[in-house]
C-alpha cells in the first residue's frame, strides 16, 4: 500500500547488528565513510570502500537489491559525470572525433568518479535502511545539542522533524479521502491537459491545507495542555545508550580509515 511505503520511508525493519547500533554511531560511521571516499584517489582505496559497503550489507542483513534501488535516482548523474570526465580530461588520446577526445586518463577518472558516487549513495543508504526516522531525529538532536550554545535550536529542529514525519501518513490518508470525496461529486484528476489537471488539484489542496492547519492547531493545543514548553530539562521515553559494540565499531572503523590514510 502506498501509505505504508511512504510512512516507513526507506527504512527496512530488522534486528541485525547494524539495526541495533546506536543511531549516533551510524551517523558517525557514515560521515567518516564519506570523508574517506573523498580523500582516496586510488583504485585499491575504492576497493576498501566496496569492502566496507559489503561488510555493512552483511552486518545489516540487507540484500544489495535495496541499495541498488536507492541508486536509481542518480543513474543519470553518474552517466553525465562519466561522460564529462572521459572526454574532458587531458592525457593520452584513445579516440578522437572532431573536438571530442577520449583519453585513457579520462576513462580511468570517469570510472573512479562513478564508483565514488555509487559508494557515497550506498553508504548513506546503509544508514537510512537500518535506522528508523524517529531514531534518526533523536540522534540528530543529541548530536546538535553541543551547538545549542551558539544558538542552534537542536530540540526544536528535532521536534519539527519528528512531527513532520509523524504527519506524512496522516496527510496521505487524508488526501486519498478528499480525492475520493471530490471524485464522488464529479472531479476528475486523471484527464485533460496539464493546465486542467493542475486546476483539478485545487479541490484537493484547499481542503488538505485547511485540515493540516486544523490538525496543527489541535496538536499545539494538546501539547500545551500537557505543559510542553520545549526541551529544557525534558526526560525522554527512548534513551539512546552507547553500548560496547558501538565503541568497538567506531574504533575499528577509525583504525581502518587511519590505515587507508597512512598508506595513501
Amino acid at each position, binding site marked *: *500500500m502506498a501509505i*505504508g511505503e511512504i510512512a516507513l520511508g526507506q527504512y527496512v525493519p530488522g534486528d541485525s547488528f547494524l539495526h541495533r547500533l546506536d543511531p549516533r554511531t551510524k551517523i558517525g560511521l557514515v560521515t567518516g565513510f564519506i570523508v574517506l571516499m573523498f580523500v582516496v584517489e586510488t583504485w585499491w582505496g575504492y576497493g576498501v570502500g566496496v569492502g566496507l559497503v559489503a561488510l555493512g550489507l552483511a552486518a545489516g542483513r540487507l540484500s544489495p537489491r535495496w541499495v541498488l534501488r536507492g541508486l536509481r535516482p542518480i543513474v543519470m548523474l553518474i552517466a553525465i559525470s562519466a561522460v564529462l570526465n572521459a572526454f574532458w580530461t587531458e592525457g593520452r588520446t584513445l579516440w578522437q572525433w572532431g573536438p571530442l577526445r577520449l583519453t585513457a586518463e579520462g576513462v580511468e577518472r570517469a570510472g573512479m568518479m562513478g564508483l565514488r558516487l555509487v559508494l557515497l549513495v550506498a553508504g548513506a543508504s546503509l544508514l537510512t535502511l537500518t535506522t528508523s526516522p524517529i531514531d534518526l531525529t533523536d540522534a540528530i538532536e543529541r548530536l546538535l545539542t553541543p551547538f545549542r550554545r551558539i544558538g542552534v535550536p537542536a530540540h526544536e529542529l528535532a521536534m519539527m522533524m519528528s512531527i513532520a514525519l509523524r504527519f506524512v501518513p496522516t496527510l496521505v490518508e487524508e488526501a486519498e*479521502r*478528499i480525492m*475520493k*470525496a*471530490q*471524485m*464522488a*461529486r*464529479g*472531479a*476528475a484528476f486523471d484527464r485533460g491537459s496539464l493546465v486542467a489537471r493542475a486546476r483539478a488539484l*485545487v*479541490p484537493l489542496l*484547499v*481542503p488538505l491545507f*485547511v*485540515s493540516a492547519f486544523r490538525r496543527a492547531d489541535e496538536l499545539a493545543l494538546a501539547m500545551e495542555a500537557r505543559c510542553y514548553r520545549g526541551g529544557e530539562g525534558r526526560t525522554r521515553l527512548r534513551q539512546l545508550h552507547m553500548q560496547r559494540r558501538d565503541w568497538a565499531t567506531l574504533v575499528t572503523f577509525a583504525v581502518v580509515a587511519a590505515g587507508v590514510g597512512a598508506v595513501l
Partner: protein
Amino acid sequence: MPIVVRHLSHVYMPGTPMAVPALHDVSFEIADGESVGLIGPTGSGKSTLVQHLNGLIRPRPGTVFVDGQDVGDRRTDLRRLRRTVGLVFQYPEYQLFEETVYDDVAFGPRSMGLDADEVDRRVRRAMALMGLDVEALAKRSPFELSGGQRRRVAIAGVLALGCSKLILDEPTAGLDPAGRRDLLRLLARLNREGMTVLLVTHDMDDLAEVARRVLVLSEGRLVADAPVRELFSRHRALLQGHRLDVPVAVRILYALRERGADVRLDRIGIDEVAEEILRWWRATRGPADGRAASGPTSTSQERSRTHGHRRDRPRPVRPR
C-alpha cells in the same frame, strides 16, 4: 432501477503479508425509493462496501449493478455512474473548498459541463432540499458557517449532481442534537420524495428514524437483512452478538417485557414506544381518562430475509 450486489468480496493489499479481508461474499439488492440502513460495528467493512456502489472501488471479485450497468465493467462511464449514485463521505464538510457556498454546491454541476442556467437551477434546488436559505447563504464563505450548516452544504453539493440514489456515511457524526434531528428529517423527506437512501451508521436511533430496512454487516459479512421492526423486535441477540443493540426506546420495551409486562416489541421511535407503554398501562390498570391509544400500523409487509436463527428471548437492560 435497483442496486444489485452479488457475491462481493474485497481484500486490501492482496497478495502481500499485510492483506486485510474487508468484505466476504456480500449479496443484496436495494430497490428504487427504498430507505435502507447499513449498520455494523467499527471496522466491519461498511465504508468499503459503499465505495463499491459508485465505482470508487472496482468490485473484484463479485458484481455490482446500478441501474443495469455493471460497475466492474471497464467500459462503464464512472463519472456518469457517480451522478446517479451520490456518495456523502464521513465529515463531508471537510471537502468544502470554494470561496462561496454557491460555488461549492455548483462544483459538481459545473464539472458536468452544464450551462449557467441549469447550474443555477440545480444549486437552488439542492440547497432547498437541504433546508438551506439560498439568498442568505449563497455569497458567504462555507468556512464561516456552523458545523451543521456546513454539513448540509456539503450534502447539497452531492445532491446537485442530480443523483437518484443517495448514500451517506455516518451523516450525523459530531452534530449536536438539533443538527442531527434536522438532518434526519431532511433525509426522511428526501426519501418520501422518491430518493433511494442508504444510511450508513452505528447509531440505532438514526436508523429507527430514517430506515425501513436494515443490512447488518459484521467482519465483512452480511449477517442480517431485515425490515427494521423485525430486526429490533426479534433479533436483539443477533445485534448484541455483533456489538450492537436496539435503540434506547426499544430497550425500554424489552426491560418492561423482562419484568413481566405484556408489551409488543415491534415498535420503533419514541412516539410509538410511548403509545405502546400507554396501551399496556391502560389494558392492565383499566381505562384511564384521556385519549384512546391507537397503535400505529405495522409496515412489516416489506421483504424479510434474516440469517439469524436464534430465537431472541427478552433480556434485562444492560447498562452500557
